[in-house]
């Protein structure tokens, strides 16, 4: 999983029917020191995260597991909202 900031969301009406009723969030992956890292991406939301929150997301087929048995066609999914993290 990786840390990220939720920077926005995506609304699409014409989409694969398995994506119906799934919230799409725009994530900016961040490094442990909070700085942005790499490109933004769109992820499905399985944790109820809001814009501005810091989250962690999973990549790959596992991102669709929270929506089982619906086969959500996705490769990234928010699975937790981060309260805080501590670095040594």
């Amino acid at each position, binding site marked *: *999983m*990786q*840390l990220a900031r939720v920077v926005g969301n995506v609304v699409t009406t014409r989409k694969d029917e398995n994506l119906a009723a799934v919230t799409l969030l725009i994530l900016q*992956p961040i*490094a*442990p020191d909070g700085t942005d*890292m*790499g490109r933004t991406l769109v992820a499905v939301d*399985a*944790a*109820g995260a809001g814009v501005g929150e810091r989250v*962690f997301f*999973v*990549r*790959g*087929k*596992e*991102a669709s*597991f*929270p929506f*089982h048995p619906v086969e959500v066609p996705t490769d990234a*999914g928010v*699975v*937790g*909202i*981060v*309260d*805080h*993290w*501590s*670095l*040594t």
Partner: protein
Amino acid sequence: MIIGRVIGTVVSTHKHAKFEGAKLLLVQPVTLDDQPKGPALLAVDGVGAGIYEKVLLVIEGRAAAEILGRKGAPVDAAIVGIIDAIDVDPALVA
């Protein structure tokens, strides 16, 4: 699998149910000569690794879910071992 060093811990109370009770650690992948390489990632801790320890990471969902002990968990990285020593023949490494 890759080698990494534990650099921190993450607290998340509001998370997917299958993460219940899982310990989440921040791990920085490192090269054979211990230089940070690539983005830090979050991994489920299966062996009780501590901060600064060098660990063995599996970066694949099914294996990571096994460490978590829950099939079908939305997880893609887990710590499967704490590394005591690495010896490499420098002549063989670029």
